[in-house]
């Protein structure tokens, strides 16, 4: 291998200023307002009168260098070599010359990019690695996202909903994304306890940290095998023991599935940020297109669209109508699994006699 350049440590990321388009550098902190022109583009106006147009396209987040080079070609042609990514992994092309906006949008369409993601619709789905790259994935993430966004593409490109609907996918309960505060989130879940490989556990794992990893104290030492044992009735299948001890695999292709939680938000707009709550505890893992999951999410979106007031997020709509009504309207079966018996349980019990029939 050829000689390598001199490495440096502790230099941190390049300073962002190097990457800002000139109009942004000039008007930094001096923006006055913005206007959404379509689901695919918007314009920001500065106090100076300068404008910057943003054209947004979808990304699967998992991008090849080939596609990134193509995005660079487009940005070189219309954007003076400037582009950015959003916190939901969309790609934004930044245009300071209005006459480039339409040609840019046409070119992007011609190349097969999907314009959208701005305003009150469904923007890109935040998601985790899944079977593409993760050892603890109970399901795939990219495939679920693709199956859902194909179904809901119109809400990305042109059709509005009462408010933004933020969807997220986590391939296991570790939730490497903001899944627990999303309008709708899918979570890969297990239904069966981990299996102990006593032979390898001795060498691979530390018994004290394996025991302390369990939130329900279901794991205890097993002196006979110099390993651990699990009190099965206490295990809630979280898989945290597997995170610290590879000898306790929990993946179970027959019983792993997908839970759907709804009604979370992170913004403070109108109502306080909310956690997402359980709508469906388990749907079978059915790759490659998860039709049962897509259908359930569609039911939630259709019901929300029909019932919510303008600007009302999914969680605000559910709280206004009540959870009993949510189950009635969606037709989702209410089960024992919906009733909390974990850390925050007592806060969730209904302590009033008023509710809806």
């Amino acid at each position, binding site marked *: 291998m050829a000689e390598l*350049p001199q*490495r*440096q*440590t*502790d230099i*941190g*990321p390049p*300073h*962002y200023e190097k*990457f800002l388009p000139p109009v942004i550098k000039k008007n*930094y*902190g001096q*923006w*006055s*307002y913005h206007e959404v022109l379509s689901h695919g583009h918007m314009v920001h106006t500065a106090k100076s009168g300068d404008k910057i147009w943003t054209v947004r396209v979808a990304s*699967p987040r*998992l*991008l*090849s*260098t*080939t596609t*990134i080079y193509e995005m*660079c070609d487009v940005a070189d042609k219309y954007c003076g070599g*400037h582009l*950015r*990514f*959003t*916190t939901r992994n969309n790609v934004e092309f930044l245009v300071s010359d209005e006459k480039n906006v339409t040609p840019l949008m046409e070119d992007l369409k011609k190349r097969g990019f999907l314009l959208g993601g701005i305003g009150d619709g469904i923007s890109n789905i*935040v998601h*985790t690695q*899944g*079977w593409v*790259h993760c*050892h603890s994935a109970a*399901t*795939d993430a*990219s*495939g679920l*996202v*693709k199956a859902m*966004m*194909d179904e809901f*593409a119109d809400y990305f490109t042109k059709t509005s909903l009462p408010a933004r609907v933020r969807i997220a996918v986590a391939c296991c*309960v570790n*939730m490497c994304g903001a899944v*627990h*505060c999303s309008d709708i989130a899918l979570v890969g879940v297990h239904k069966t306890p981990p299996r102990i490989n006593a032979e390898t556990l001795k060498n691979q794992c530390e018994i004290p940290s394996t025991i*302390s990893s369990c*939130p329900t104290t279901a794991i205890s030492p097993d002196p006979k095998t110099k390993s651990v044992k699990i009190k099965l009735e206490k295990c809630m299948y*979280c898989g945290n023991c597997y995170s610290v001890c590879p000898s306790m695999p929990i993946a179970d292709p027959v019983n792993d599935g997908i839970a759907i939680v709804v009604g979370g938000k*992170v*913004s*403070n*707009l*109108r*109502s306080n940020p909310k*956690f997402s709550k359980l709508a469906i505890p388990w749907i079978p893992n059915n790759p*490659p*297109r998860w039709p049962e999951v897509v259908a359930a999410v569609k039911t939630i979106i259709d019901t929300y669209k029909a019932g919510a007031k*303008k600007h009302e997020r999914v969680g605000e709509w559910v709280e206004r109508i009540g959870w009993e009504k949510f189950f009635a309207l969606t037709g989702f079966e209410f089960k024992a699994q919906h009733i909390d018996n974990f850390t925050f349980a007592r806060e969730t019990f209904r302590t009033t006699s008023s509710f809806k029939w």
Partner: protein
Amino acid sequence: MGKKYATPLLDELKKGAFPSFVTEIEKAAEKTEYARDLLGLLEQSYREKLTHWKHGGIVGVRGYGGGVIGRYSDLPDKYPGVAHFHTVRVNQPSGFYYTTAALREVMGIWDKYGSGLTNMHGSTGDMVLLGTNTESLEAIFAELSSRGWDLGGSGSAMRTPSCCLGKSRCEWACIDTMALTNEITQHFQDEMHRPAFPYKFKFKVAGCAVDCIASIARADMSIIGTWKGDIGIKQDEVANYSKTMDIQKEIIDMCPTGCMTYTGGKLSIDNSNCNRCMHCIAQMTKALSPGPERGATILLGSKAPIVTGALMSWVIVPFIKLEPPYEEFFELVGKIWEWWDEHGKNRERIGELIERMGFPTFLKGVELTPHPAMIKSPRRDPFFFWDEEDIQR
């Protein structure tokens, strides 16, 4: 180079309107054995409904304890191209802005040493280079760092801070999120690259209460821009909005505190009762703007459900001016980390530690004064502690 494996299940995911990750892997498979074998391995996962990745191990670049996630396939003989498939986290520039020259530079390095696959970006914010072998890691690091790029955080360390785009393109930003994020990242390089905390610690900086970076849900320390003083009103622009919007229904009736009125074509706000939720400003951005004294609220503790349930961050500093050199802020972070270091158990996040030790104990430990903005309501039980000085002996 053609396909190595038949992938009938993955092929189903090339259909449809939304861009396909399978197509992306196939594009990379034109160039690399990593991506070719990833397609085979992933197809097998789709067939068996089972992941084929193992736990990470000891892998990284010399001197750093983070930035590389070790990943090995459990089928190395069948898919040798992904026997090693390590991730390199590259610290993104604040706000995720790039020039094409900068992106081409990083992608060029990645094409030389890796799979040609990326995540733009990972959940924490890093540019994620997905899939390389152990032997290439030092070379990738030398190529990146010599050109001004550094790795992000992983393990029990400060994780790569990230932010919304703030003042660069948003009229609502009450703090300079990008400057602060860059400053935090540079200030704590050692804490990021050499994991020495009980567990991970994430910073996310949002310019306003809309929180586009989801800081309140997924940062151990959430910094959210806000203001004091009166919301700016341009009545002529209010009049313009009244032509396209039912102001009474969409703004006044939806205000959570009922602090707004709209009579005779004039919008009034009782600012002393406003809780700064941003709904009216977000809907009438030409007419309304955040008040004049800008700063941030600092909240602490959010995390995903592992181990005992998800937490959202809660207020520890109701208002702080956040301007360079951020001395007061860094001092506070130092105190919090010291308290965590002293009391935290292995794999215990700061939020969980505060729950275990008690919020008042934390406040005392880091010398913060209790304030009603820190709670939703006072306690409803009669069980509380007193200090020695509160007792008559």
